[in-house]
């Protein structure tokens, strides 16, 4: 990453970490801010099948936005409508306030990095990177400078005259990145850009992409089905489901305050306890679930009423697991036995089986190198949590 830093057009402000710059970035919260990209009630049908349905989404300048969802939920289709490879069946796609509908891909000021890289096999690395600049009729010397700059940025200078077939997967990925960045597009579209890389290289590249996006001041729209990747890189995540957006928000919002059971289950591990609302008092509800009673906080505006079915979703790391019973075993406490143990190094995951057969997942951080009395299989344990540990969602 230090090498990437050297090639920055503008040096980052000294003494501030990338994170602190990112944390203060929230144009979506500012009503005066105009979005750079807007999808307005966009639908795309292939025959009778709706790949994208009536979708609204606004993405802001310099935002790193991730489209997250399972395979086939319409992420690529959404991206391809922005690039111009697919025309919306209805609705409008806008960039910088101008409609993109009907504009062919070669006239759109966005560039795409393809999942398969789609490098031109008959051209050298250099020619691949130069391709887009040539189309614009940029002067030869200027082109050469830009190509050199791009190759330096992705650390591919020694390979400039190689053909794509003579490069490793990681190097090809960098050529594709350099090629799509060379024209300084208003928006860079990335369709599962790291899917073909191994885990270690993928994690390195994630940080490099974030760094690049910051230093070049570009807007990135990335497609991924990997929630960790989305959470690592993105300012905001759109969680998609069957052609619609299930939730848009920062990684924290999507993880800690999922808007639906689907989002809670798709992003990270979660325990889902289904029950009925027994009582509601202000921002507190009492749920009866098989095996116990849950008291949980709900937002004031929540529409949950006494008697309505609801689920309680709580992340494994927010459950405490212990041998002894809590002071009040009647509320937010479940007794079970250790069913499975997964030691992951940094943390340990426990599956506890409740008397009714349900499994609750709990995670503990291994802060010390060894525990005096580690929990063993089939031991009786108590799982407890605070009223604000999870969220209550409509069934």
């Amino acid at each position, binding site marked *: 990453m230090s090498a990437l830093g050297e090639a920055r057009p503008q040096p980052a402000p000294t003494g501030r970490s990338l994170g602190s710059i990112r944390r203060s970035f929230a144009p979506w919260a500012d009503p005066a801010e105009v979005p750079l990209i807007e999808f307005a009630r966009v639908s795309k049908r292939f025959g009778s099948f709706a790949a994208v349905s009536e979708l609204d989404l606004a993405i802001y300048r310099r935002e790193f936005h991730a489209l997250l969802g399972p395979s086939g939920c319409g992420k690529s289709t959404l991206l391809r409508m922005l690039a111009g490879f697919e025309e919306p069946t209805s609705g409008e796609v806008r960039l910088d306030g101008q409609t993109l509908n009907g504009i062919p*891909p070669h006239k759109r000021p966005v560039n795409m990095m393809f999942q398969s890289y789609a490098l031109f096999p*008959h051209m050298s690395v250099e020619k691949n990177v130069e*391709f887009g600049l040539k*189309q*614009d009729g940029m002067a030869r010397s200027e082109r050469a400078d830009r190509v050199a700059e791009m190759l330096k940025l992705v650390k591919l200078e020694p390979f400039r005259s190689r053909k794509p077939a003579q490069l490793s997967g990681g190097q090809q990925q960098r050529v594709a990145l350099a090629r799509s960045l060379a024209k300084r597009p208003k928006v860079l579209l990335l369709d599962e850009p790291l899917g073909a890389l191994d885990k270690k290289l993928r994690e390195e590249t994630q940080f490099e992409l974030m760094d690049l996006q910051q230093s070049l001041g570009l807007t990135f729209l990335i497609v991924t089905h990997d929630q960790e990747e989305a959470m690592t890189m993105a300012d905001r995540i759109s969680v998609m489901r069957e052609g619609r957006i299930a939730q848009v928000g920062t990684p924290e919002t999507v993880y800690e305050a999922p808007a639906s059971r689907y989002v809670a289950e798709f992003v990270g*591990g979660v325990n889902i306890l289904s029950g009925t609302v027994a009582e509601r008092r202000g921002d507190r509800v009492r749920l009866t679930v098989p095996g116990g009673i849950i008291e949980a906080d709900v937002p004031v505006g929540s529409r949950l009423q006494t008697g309505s079915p609801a689920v309680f979703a709580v992340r494994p790391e927010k459950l405490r697991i212990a041998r002894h019973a809590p002071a009040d075993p009647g509320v937010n406490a479940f007794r079970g036995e250790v069913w499975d143990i*997964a030691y992951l190094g940094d943390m340990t995951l*426990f599956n506890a089986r409740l008397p009714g057969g349900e499994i609750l997942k709990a995670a503990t951080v291994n802060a010390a190198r060894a525990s005096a009395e580690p929990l063993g299989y089939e031991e009786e344990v108590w799982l407890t949590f605070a009223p604000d540990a999870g969220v209550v969602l409509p069934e």
Partner: protein
Amino acid sequence: MSADVAEPAGAPAARPAPEPAGPERIADSASFRRLVVGLPFVWLLLLFLVPFLLVLKISLSTLALGQPPYEPVFPLAEIASFGERLRELSFENYLFLTDDPLYLDSLISSLVTASVSTVLALLVAYPFALGLARAPERLRPMLLVLTILPFWTSFLIRVYAWMGILRNEGFLNQLLLWLGLIDQPLVILNTNTAVLIGIVYSYLPFMVLPIYASLERQDPRLLEAAADLGSPPARAFWQVTFPLSLPGVLAGCLLVFIPAVGEFVIPDLLGGSETLMIGKTLWNEFFINRDWPVASAVAVVLLVLLVGPLLLLQRARGSAGAGAL
């Protein structure tokens, strides 16, 4: 993030097959590979090299009246006096070829005819192949069958059919007269034009198929990438599609050019007195003049000239394989 613990049991049980199988299998596959690689060579040896050596041998002998009509060289019975025999070889037939301008003229004329028909075939076949490659996937098998359907009829019958089409009072002239495009029938049959039409028609599938193959396996994403980077469709064709199809174009050109040079039936049936083709000269030499040694010399020269382009094809194949994928 499921907490299922990996079961350690069962892992050691799933060992691969016992070790001795390994080396044996490698030996097996090596001999199998030798067989597979060897078969085409045996084929070439029996059906190409042996006949070629026979022709070469005849080309080095002298004309004789008799059956066969040449003096034998290297009779097998006298294999012992090999060195002596070597001195008796006659290169007369090759020298004769340079004496009579007929041979050089018909060779040049053949090369010109073959080149022109190759270019024409390319111009017709490329859009054809592009159309095939861009056709909806479920239609492609049927379109391919249609492309090679003419091969199911005898080649001779198809060339005869062209005689019917190209005659003065033939189908083509009737059509053009009826459309009012001409008011005199065009004389096409028995001209070099008819020969070109015949060759382009007959060899078109040999041009279409390799070009189609190279177009069909191109990643459509490449054109999307070109468009994405600002290249309009027509320009993207010349920047991406065409250069990537060059191995197919080259293969098609050679598949048309090489047999077209030696073509005999088409010039004989569709050509006229002006038509001079080496294949026809060869035929005349063998069957009209019954001069087998000279005819064989013509055949050997032709072959040597055509080996050049073939080696070119081989090289192009090799470099395409290394560079393309």
